[in-house]
């Protein structure tokens, strides 16, 4: 059973020379202890790459949402008025 599962979850891919050479020498850069196997380092690299892709998409969506809100006239008026109140108050 474990062998069958392993076959299903493995893929064969080409890895560029610098990554193939360097990454296994520095497992600590991807949060793994020294002596971690090459395959585990590459697996972690893929995980980090996928997380970065998702994060980049999320950040693009966030930026366009925030830019739209920044242009909202009501928000601009409230931001100025709130600021005056914050300066007058003893909150900070």
């Amino acid at each position, binding site marked *: 059973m474990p062998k069958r599962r392993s076959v299903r979850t493995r893929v064969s891919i080409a890895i560029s020379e610098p990554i193939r050479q360097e990454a296994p020498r520095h497992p600590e850069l991807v949060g793994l202890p020294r002596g971690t196997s090459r395959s585990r380092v590459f697996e972690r690299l893929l995980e980090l790459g996928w997380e970065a892709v998702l994060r980049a998409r999320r*950040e693009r*969506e*966030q*930026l366009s*949402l*925030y*830019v*739209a*809100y*920044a242009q*909202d*006239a*009501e*928000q*601009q*008026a*409230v*931001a*100025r*008025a*709130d*600021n*005056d*109140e*914050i*300066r007058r*108050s*003893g*909150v*900070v």
Partner: protein
Amino acid sequence: MAFLRGWIYRPAQERPTTSGLVVLTNDRWNQTMLRVGVVPVRTAVAPFDIPYSVALPGGTHVVASRLVAPHVEGGLLGLVEGALDATTLAAVEDRLCAFLQIPELLRPAPRPAPPLGDATRYAAWSEVHRAGPEVDGERKRRIVVSPNPWNAVSGMATFVRTTTSFAGHGDEFPQVQGGAGHACCGDATTFELRAVLLQRRDRPVPHSTTLHDMVAIARGLAVTHGLEEAVRRAGTSLH
């Protein structure tokens, strides 16, 4: 000037007990918005703020329970003074997370603390009030997000504003009150009670919002104020 999360800025003008302001809103927010979320570095800490404070070397304290959102050109934020180290920033995030009751609200069956004492004398958690300064002749509708034990004794409350003029989709602007408006989580700010209309006759209808809305606002606050890691540290998750 760009404001960066985790950095401390001097007040532009001297203030009695505040020596710095720590930016906590996320850096996409800080890049685009006219206002950023900050908490003060104070030389004195009120007893009710102690559970939400983090001591700094030199005897000052970052007080996460005094969250405000000043205008970036509003004369409050001055020059950069330094940055919190990662451990201190994480501690401040944890205090703000606790203050906003985010871990509790993101649990499967949230049970926020009930009001204490005479809740007509302060702004209680999840209530809707007209609060803050007048804009175009009216105070805006805002929902209380600070915890009742703090609201009851501090003479202040922390609010998120609701709006019908902006209908952006995202965790940061959750729909509230059955879709009647959106909460602007990144604008969360604290007001003294003199800026809040507490009388029931002055309050908008409905007078309070639902637990479902409060959970959505908690999620939004975690995103706008960069508290995702703090949420994880508290043993809960955003989704």
